[in-house]
């Protein structure tokens, strides 16, 4: 009996000691982990906007996240956009499904509160009527250089060959695609996985809204001169030459990856859908903010 007690005590002691150590390590590392995750996201966004890879982002580059919520009230469903304001505050701009503005609700929150998903959801819920339910949908990023609009970065998702492909599209103020990035995918190595390669991603560069509308995927082989422009790191072509070639192929459809037509089509459709939805929504949001006289930070 005495032995059993002894064993129990020592096992308990081991467990408690382990839990304490783990708790301490957790407390130390959790913040770093969150910060690093933020940093990765920021790097992706900056990279899409043309900074990174040796080109440092300028001081006055400002990136504003705009979160979208789907708000279901007992009678109607609406959309709520969480917009940063000029005077450091935040507002929840609600819009009905047809695009009519409803109201802008000021939010009691600061940047740190907004950055964390849990506290942000709570803040949004607080601002809304009691019987309303808000579900987070997505975040788009508006980038300014000083006071000038630099562009937008929009996340999207599409059904790939096996699993979802998460991507991000960057647009300039005219809604022309300036780049895409695949943030998460599990396509087959050597086939669908090539969607992560520059020579595929860069095909989307420069496609305007007009071109995107009718963009298709073709199974023709990629023209060799185009390849030079798409993968500049592997050739010695000058910036001018690359520009010329890109210009020439600007209106081309997307050339499918060899043996991976499905993945190529998935990404193309994903980009088209992402841009279409964003342009539609952002137009409405801009109108609403003008009408309601919301002074957004961007």
């Amino acid at each position, binding site marked *: 009996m005495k032995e059993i007690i002894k064993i129990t005590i020592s096992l308990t002691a081991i467990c408690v000691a*382990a*839990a304490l150590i*783990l*708790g301490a*390590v*957790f407390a130390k590392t959790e913040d770093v982990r969150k910060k690093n995750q933020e940093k990765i996201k920021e790097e992706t966004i900056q990279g899409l906007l043309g900074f990174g890879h040796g080109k440092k982002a300028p001081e006055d580059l400002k990136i504003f996240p705009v979160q979208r919520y*789907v708000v279901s009230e007992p009678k109607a*469903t609406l*959309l709520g956009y969480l917009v940063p304001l000029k005077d450091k505050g935040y507002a929840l701009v609600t*819009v009905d*499904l*047809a*695009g009519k503005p409803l109201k802008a609700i000021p939010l009691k929150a600061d940047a740190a509160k907004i950055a964390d998903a849990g506290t942000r959801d709570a803040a949004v819920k607080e601002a809304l009527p009691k019987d309303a339910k808000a*579900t987070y*949908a*997505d975040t788009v990023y508006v980038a300014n250089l000083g006071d000038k609009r630099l562009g937008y970065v929009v996340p999207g998702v599409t*059904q790939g*060959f*096996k699993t*979802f492909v998460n991507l991000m599209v960057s647009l300039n103020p005219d809604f022309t695609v300036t780049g895409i990035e695949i943030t998460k995918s599990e396509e*087959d190595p050597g086939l669908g996985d090539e969607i992560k390669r520059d020579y595929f991603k860069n095909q989307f560069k420069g496609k305007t809204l007009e071109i995107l509308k009718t963009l298709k995927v073709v199974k023709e082989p990629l023209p060799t001169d185009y390849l030079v422009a798409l993968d500049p790191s592997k050739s010695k072509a000058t910036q001018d030459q690359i520009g010329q070639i890109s210009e020439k192929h600007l209106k081309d459809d997307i050339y499918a990856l060899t043996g991976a037509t499905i993945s190529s089509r998935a990404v193309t459709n994903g980009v088209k859908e992402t841009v279409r*939805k964003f342009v*539609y*929504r952002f137009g409405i949001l801009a109108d609403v903010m003008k009408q309601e006289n919301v002074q957004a930070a961007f």
Partner: protein
Amino acid sequence: MNICRFAMKAAWVFLLLLVIASPVIAETAGSGAFKKDKEIEISFGIPVDESWAKNTNNFSVFEKPDPDIKVAVESVELDSRRVTAVLKFKESLNLSSEYVVEAKDVSSEGKVLGSREFFVKKGQFQILFGLLLAAMLIENFVFTKYLGLCIFFGVSQKKETAVGMGITFTLVMVLSAIISWALYTYVLRALHLDFLKIIVFIGTVAIFVQAVDTILRKVNPYLFKKLGVYLVLITTNCIILAVPLLNADRNYGAFESLIFGLGAGVGFAIAMFLMASVREKLELARVPATFKGLPIAFVVTGLFALAFLGFSGLSIF
């Protein structure tokens, strides 16, 4: 032989439970179903007017997170009893997301009954079956996820032991997956103690195996004699820890966790059985001396993995 019969019975009970549970799990009221990738079927429960139903403007369809962006309905077809309608779309739908169909002012025999909403997503049964198949064959834990190799190579020399191990393993796997799920959901996540995951899961598995060992020893000495040997080995199998970890990672629900565990266990048993039957044949072969034993077992496993590539990308629904 007794083990096999026991396992068969257990398998039948499982299947039966699944069949009984499936309609319960699947939402029945106010739901629609995908027919093909461009069609949604909804059922009103009462005959509706054809003139109302044929008007595509009466339906608005959208993906749940995008209520402001409608999917254009191309045409609507009513069945002969005018109870179910099939909405046809120009563009293919995303079958893995949830759609909402709003039918405005449903009109039946000239009377307007008000609007109704239908939620359309892949059926729970289909999801579970897909998960089972994926864990068993498409992403077989041994051949494509490389887990449980130590036991796989260690115990697959004789077919009989391989089958015994496979069955014991599957049973323990399913039960420990469920227990771990409950612990994770109701204790760890509720108390924000996620970081204790590893220590708790390994502890759960160890305690559980010990408990099965003790109970079996008392209750059914015959079965214990057959399976007891493997019980000790199970604790050091990576699959048994990988399944709860993956369940937690992917936020699976109770049923999903159970099915995932079942699939992993059966997949492991299949792999063991195949490997054992091949190894029995190999023992008689003139394998080069430097390859005898583990090296050739690895090469054979590689060839199995090559054959199992045939299942890649398989989706029944």
